[in-house]
């Protein structure tokens, strides 16, 4: 969205407001000055024997006010401010849809499941106190403890890593070494490499050599290049920052390592790297504009929107939101499901099972492929797995 236009309009309103304010202040100052002058005159008159004509003094004050004409002074700037403010309001209405509730559908969702999702989000983000409070309020403190525990461990590790303390991470890697090896992760080597560099930075070459023998040599057959470079670092003990390997000291290595560890940790838990709730909300935010546009087009058919199962318009999500392929049948235009899986025909094209059954009259007839002139026997179609 182009926000510079809105910012420009906002700046104009701000400028007009300041101008109007200063004009108003100026007028008020003038009025106050005249009143104070008259008060001084009246007070000084009380101390003498002369009788003062109060009516005359007040008439003079009135004449001064008429001369100043504060209303006409302020009128111009006030009018300009109102014009700018009105334009700004219209611009906001044009760019921001004020009523997104039109896209709302009343979906029945299991309250317990929803609570679990929300709590999982809090724990996933490391907001343990909020999560605990939320779960106690909704009355499910037992499941909270179960859900919370692994994330507490993960954030303890990450917090230690922020202080460049790798011990909790190395303990975790040691405990889960087999699972990590199965998943093909090289994070164990990365952790040990970082620890090795840290030992080397403290200037202890003998300790570094000992550490390399204990923890790095098992990786030599599969990561020989990395091991060679790390061993080359031994020649630069105490001056690694001036060596060909100074990139190993980059602070960004710690950030990358922390992210990699979090990813692997969630992977072992069977959870996604990002909180499911945050992913859902982010995807929803992306989809909302085309949805609202669709709602405007369908304004007269409110009831139909509430009951439809599938959007009649496609919505494009960024690559980060595409997790699995979903096949859409070119004949029925429906998404494949477990009951209606995609089937590979002998000609190489793919249709959904129900479409094939329909076109082949329940497997009793040979039918033509919609894409090519081949005749298809339903019995020879094979189910596809993505």
């Amino acid at each position, binding site marked *: 969205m182009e926000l510079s236009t809105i910012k420009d309009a906002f700046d104009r309103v701000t400028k007009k407001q300041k101008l109007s304010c200063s004009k108003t202040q100026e007028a008020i100052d003038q009025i106050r000055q005249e009143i104070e002058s008259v008060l001084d005159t009246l007070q000084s008159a009380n101390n003498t024997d002369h009788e003062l004509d109060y009516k005359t003094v007040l008439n003079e004050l009135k004449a001064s006010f008429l001369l100043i004409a504060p209303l006409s002074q302020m009128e111009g700037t006030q009018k300009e401010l109102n014009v700018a403010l009105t334009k700004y309001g219209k611009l906001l209405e044009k760019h921001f849809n004020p009523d997104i509730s039109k896209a709302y559908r009343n979906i029945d969702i299991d309250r317990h499941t929803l609570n679990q999702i929300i709590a999982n989000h809090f724990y996933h983000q490391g907001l343990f106190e909020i999560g605990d409070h939320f779960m106690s309020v909704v009355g499910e403190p037992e499941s909270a403890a179960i859900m919370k525990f692994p994330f507490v461990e993960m954030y303890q590790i990450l917090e230690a890593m922020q202080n460049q303390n790798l011990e909790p991470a190395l303990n975790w890697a040691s405990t889960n070494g087999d699972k990590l090896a199965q998943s093909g992760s090289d994070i164990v080597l990365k952790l040990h490499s970082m620890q090795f560099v840290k030992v080397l930075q403290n200037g202890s*070459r*003998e300790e570094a*050599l000992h550490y*390399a*023998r204990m923890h*790095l*040599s098992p990786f*030599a*057959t599969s990561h*020989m290049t990395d*091991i*060679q*470079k790390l*061993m*080359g670092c*031994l*020649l630069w003990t105490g001056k690694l920052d001036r060596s*060909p390997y100074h990139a190993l000291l980059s602070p960004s290595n710690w950030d990358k390592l922390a992210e990699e560890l979090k990813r692997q940790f969630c992977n072992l838990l069977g959870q996604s790297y990002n909180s499911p709730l945050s992913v859902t909300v982010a995807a929803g935010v992306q989809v909302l504009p085309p949805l609202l546009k669709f709602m405007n087009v369908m304004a007269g058919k409110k009831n139909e929107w509430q009951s439809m199962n599938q959007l009649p318009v496609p919505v494009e999500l960024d690559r980060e939101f595409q997790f699995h392929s979903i096949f859409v049948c070119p004949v029925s235009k429906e998404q494949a499901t477990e009951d209606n899986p995609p089937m590979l025909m002998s000609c190489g094209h793919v249709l959904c099972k129900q479409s094939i059954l329909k076109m082949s009259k329940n497997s009793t007839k040979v039918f033509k492929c919609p894409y090519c002139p081949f005749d298809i026997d339903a019995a020879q179609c094979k189910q596809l797995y993505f």
Partner: protein
Amino acid sequence: MDVDPCQYEQIAINEKDVNNIILSYLIHNCYKESSESFISCTGMKQPADHLENMEKRKRIFHHALEGNVLKAIELTGQLAQDILENNNDLLFDLLSLHFVDLVCSKEWAEALEFAQTKLSPFSVKEQKYMEKIEGFMSLLAYENPVECPMFHLIGLDYRQQVVDSLNQTILGWLTSLYSVYLIYILLQISILCSIPAKYDLQSLSFCLFFSVDVGDGQHTLTFPSTLPWSGLYNRPQ
């Protein structure tokens, strides 16, 4: 003309020439006792100072092979200052042999110190040495270097290769132009193929012409009556 292998038995080779080739091979490889026995058995004329030069090379050769590389480097320097100074590759390889010796002796601290002071400076000069140093340093990651994937660096094959390179470098310096080994190879090829060959060396000048008539077996290979072999090891200073 090519000689039909079936006709090899028809070729009559001057025994004196064969003896010269054999002697050059023995001298090349520092087989002192063998070359002396060979000379006495065949009655050949003994090259003038071949023993002294061979003795020097042999000492260097054996020091390097037996794990005393620093001594070999020192002796090579005594022979001529610029042999190794002008050959960084060979010097690096020799120093790496010493590093390997320290690793095999489990003198880790000395190995690290040596690598830092003697090998590291090479990596500052050229990038290719950096990768070699890393390979050698990976040997340190194991209590038993044989377990390292780079274990070939501690094997005899690698050591022999480096020492052969040193030997050839010294011989190359001695002859200035060609290594004896090269001549040895060329001579063998010339004889087998009957190719006319001319060699013009700084301190040597000889021609080899062959003629073979396999028809009646009357002709033989002919060489000049003498080959000044001693010149190979007696370069003017």
